[in-house]
């Protein structure tokens, strides 16, 4: 009996291993950042716009540095180097992992998606539909607007840093924005923010084409159950599934949901090479 429960528990954990890991990383980082403000820890000061690590070097959001540059201000070397480190990390190694392993908004939008599925909320076709490519236009528009308005255009309305700052430094009325974003994903468009609008997700998608860590599909093992399509928040990236083997590219955020639900072991994390 007890053995059975244990077995079940471990199966549940195994089937959610990446979610558990991701939440651990996301919340862990929040605690480290929060600790700096609440208890004076010195591991990670600042926030996702720029972080001061172990009081020795800086990391910075490359998208923010880029917008600031477009707005006509060249940041100090600290921020520029910090931005390059982060950019290289995602572009060469981790892919769009920021979105599902780091970004705090991901927890909000995942919750919205979960409830949307649970309560079977579907918005009528054409009631309000947006293209998944919109985010690239938002990304471009943000860069073009920055010099016109004389300030990093996305940063001044950025709900991601608003949420992160809110958790660490206090929200003010910022709550309203986050609730609006949650409701948008829950009621209006499925995967609305992260899958359609967010320019930061677009930024990392566009720059991480050759990142090493990617999900690999083995068509020989695939039984075409299509479960991965049901959980992926960027299902268009799975177009090769069941057709041919290869790596999942573009907007895939390395969340690992597809790997967890695949009972045939046809999907797994792997190191990218161009030969396949």
């Amino acid at each position: 009996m007890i053995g059975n429960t244990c077995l079940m528990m471990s199966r549940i954990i195994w089937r959610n291993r990446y979610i558990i890991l991701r939440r651990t990383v996301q919340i862990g980082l929040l605690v480290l950042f929060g600790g700096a403000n609440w208890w004076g820890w010195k591991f990670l000061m600042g926030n996702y716009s720029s972080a001061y690590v172990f009081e020795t070097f800086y990391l910075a959001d490359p998208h923010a540095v880029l917008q600031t540059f477009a707005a006509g201000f060249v940041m100090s070397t600290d921020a520029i180097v910090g931005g390059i480190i982060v950019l290289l990390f995602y572009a060469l190694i981790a892919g769009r992992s920021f979105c599902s392993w780091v970004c705090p908004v991901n927890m909000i939008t995942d919750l919205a998606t979960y409830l949307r599925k649970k309560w079977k909320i579907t918005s009528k076709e054409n009631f309000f539909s947006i293209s998944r490519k919109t985010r690239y236009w938002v990304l471009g528009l943000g860069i073009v607007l920055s010099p016109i308005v004389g300030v990093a255009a996305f940063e001044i309305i950025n709900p991601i840093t608003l949420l992160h700052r809110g958790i660490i430094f206090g929200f003010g009325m910022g709550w309203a924005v986050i609730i609006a974003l949650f409701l948008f994903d829950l009621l209006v468009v499925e995967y609305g923010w992260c899958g359609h609008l967010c320019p930061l997700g677009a930024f990392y998608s566009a720059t991480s084409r050759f990142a090493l860590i990617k999900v690999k599909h083995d068509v020989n093992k695939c039984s075409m159950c299509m479960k991965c399509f049901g959980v992926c928040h960027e299902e268009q990236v799975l177009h090769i599934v069941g057709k041919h083997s290869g790596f999942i590219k573009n907007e895939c955020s390395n969340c690992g949901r597809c790997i967890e639900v695949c009972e045939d072991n046809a999907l797994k994390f792997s190191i990218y090479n161009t030969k396949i």
Partner: protein
Amino acid sequence: MADTQNMNSRRDALKTMFRGAGLLGLGGAAWGSAAIRLKASELTLRPPAAIKEELFVKACIRCGTCVEACPYDTLQLATLDDHTAMGTPFFKPRLIPCYMCTDVPCVPVCPSGALDLKNIAKQIDGVQTEKPDINKAKMGVAMLDQEACLAYWGIQCDACYRACPLLGEAITLEFKRNERTGKHAFLKPVVHRDVCTGCGLCEHACVTEKAAIFVLPRTVATGRVGAHYIKGWDEADEERLKNMKEAQTKKSSPEDELNDWEYLLDDE
């Protein structure tokens, strides 16, 4: 037949393109005007050594490292309802003033260049060093409302004078005979804007219900005479007349005023 189909699809494509362009323009206009409104922050007091406001809102990456470095919780990051660019640091002296730490921990940690040590660099024998000199900070300037100041009523109060870290320099007391009583004196606090750092300790200390002395950003609180007025009684200023070129005698345009920020740092 094929031709009309072609025409139709081309017309459709054109339609989609126009609709896309329209949406893009609309979105851009809305976003742009929101951004311009959201960055407006004329009445905000920034941390020490901040570069001028216009550049500051561009430069600051909104990381809050300065906020965390401040041991007094003086600095806060603006939220949506703070009437200044969201996520940028500022302080409200009536709540918590800047205590003018001699090591100025908030400045060197800034990664972006929004807070620039150069603006408060210590001079030793006329040479600029890497060390900070908090007395050179120009966060703002204290303004005094004489109508609300008890000392100007003739009641004894020198709370602001005593609170000032630059006591006797940034605020001095002016003695005046109180004609009303005939036997008392006024001890009127007077702010000297060339010395005042804008730390707000005076505003914090002021005993009136709403502070009679309060800090405003320098750009808001200061006027400027213009180069063509000469202090005839001041030899150094007389010198200036000799060196002045004609071009300098015209009134400066509003643009000049915006571009010229040196006077914020070294007010004579």
